[in-house]
C-alpha cells in the first residue's frame, strides 16, 4: 500500500470538513464537520506511526479523548445558545459585528 493513498484520503476528508464548517449554520452540524476534520488528522497520525514508531498511535488516542471532551463542551454551548435564542442558527450570533 502506498503512503499517499491514506494521506490523500485524509486530505479529502479534511477539505470536506472545512467546507462543512464554512457552509453549515446549524450548530450541531458545524460540530459534526469539526469531527470530520479531527478524524482526518487522526488518519495522518496513524499513517506516520507506521514510519516512526508508536508515538503516533499514542497521540491519536489523545486526540480521540480530546475530541470527545470537545463534543461534550461544544454541545453544552450549543444547548446554551438554543436556550437563549430559541434557535441554533449560528448566523444569528452577530452581536460582535461592528
Amino acid at each position, binding site marked *: 500500500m502506498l503512503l499517499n493513498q491514506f494521506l490523500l484520503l485524509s*486530505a479529502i476528508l479534511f477539505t470536506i470538513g472545512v467546507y462543512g464548517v464554512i457552509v453549515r449554520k446549524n450548530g450541531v452540524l458545524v*460540530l459534526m464537520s469539526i469531527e470530520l476534520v479531527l*478524524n482526518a488528522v487522526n*488518519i495522518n497520525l496513524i499513517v506516520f506511526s507506521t514510519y516512526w514508531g508508536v508515538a503516533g498511535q499514542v497521540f491519536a488516542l489523545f486526540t480521540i479523548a480530546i475530541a470527545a471532551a470537545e463534543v461534550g463542551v461544544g*454541545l453544552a454551548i450549543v444547548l446554551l445558545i438554543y436556550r437563549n435564542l430559541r434557535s441554533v442558527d449560528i448566523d444569528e450570533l452577530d452581536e460582535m459585528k461592528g
Partner: protein
Amino acid sequence: MNSAALIIAEVVPLVTPETTFDVPANVVFAVQAVVMIFAALRVVTTKNVVHAALWLVVVLGGVGLNYILLQAEFVAVTQFLVYLGAVIVLFLFGVMLTRAPLGVSDDLDNNQKKIGIGVGVALLAVLSYALIESFGRSELTFAAYEGVAGPNTNGRTQAVSDAIFGQYLIPFEMLSLLLLAALIGAIVLARRD
C-alpha cells in the same frame, strides 16, 4: 523459440516485482475510501440533521477500518467504542435537545456556498500537490512495527501501552485533568439556574 524464452525471462521479473503490494488490502481500501468520501459529502450536504449524524457513523466506521488496515488495532477499537458508541449518541442527544427540525429542512446552510467550494478546492489542490511532491509513490513499510512481537501476541498494543505509561505519562495525566475540566464545564454550562 530462443528469443521467446529470452523475452519471457526479461518480462517475468517486470510483472512480478518484489513489492509489498497486497491486492486484498488495496481492494478494501478503495471500496471504503469511495464509501467514506460519499458519506462525508452527505454529512455536509444533507438537508436532514438526523441523516447527517447517521452518515457520520459511516465515516467514523471507515476511519476505524483505516486504522485496522494500518495495523493499529488498539486505536481502531477505541475509535469504534468512543466515536460510534459515545460521540454519535451525544450528537443525537444534541439534535433532540435543540429541537432540530426532524424532517427535511432548507434552513441548514448559509449563503456562503461559493466561498466554501472555493476554499475547499484551493485547500485540496494545495494539500494534494504538497503530498504528491513530498511522498510520491513511496510504499508503506510498517518499519516501526518490526521490533515488536509477532501478530498473535498483542505485541503492538503492549508497545502502545508502554509508550503511554512510560514516555507519555505526564501528558496522559494532564489528559485526565482535561477530561475532568470538560466534565465540570459541560455541567456548569448546561445546568438550569
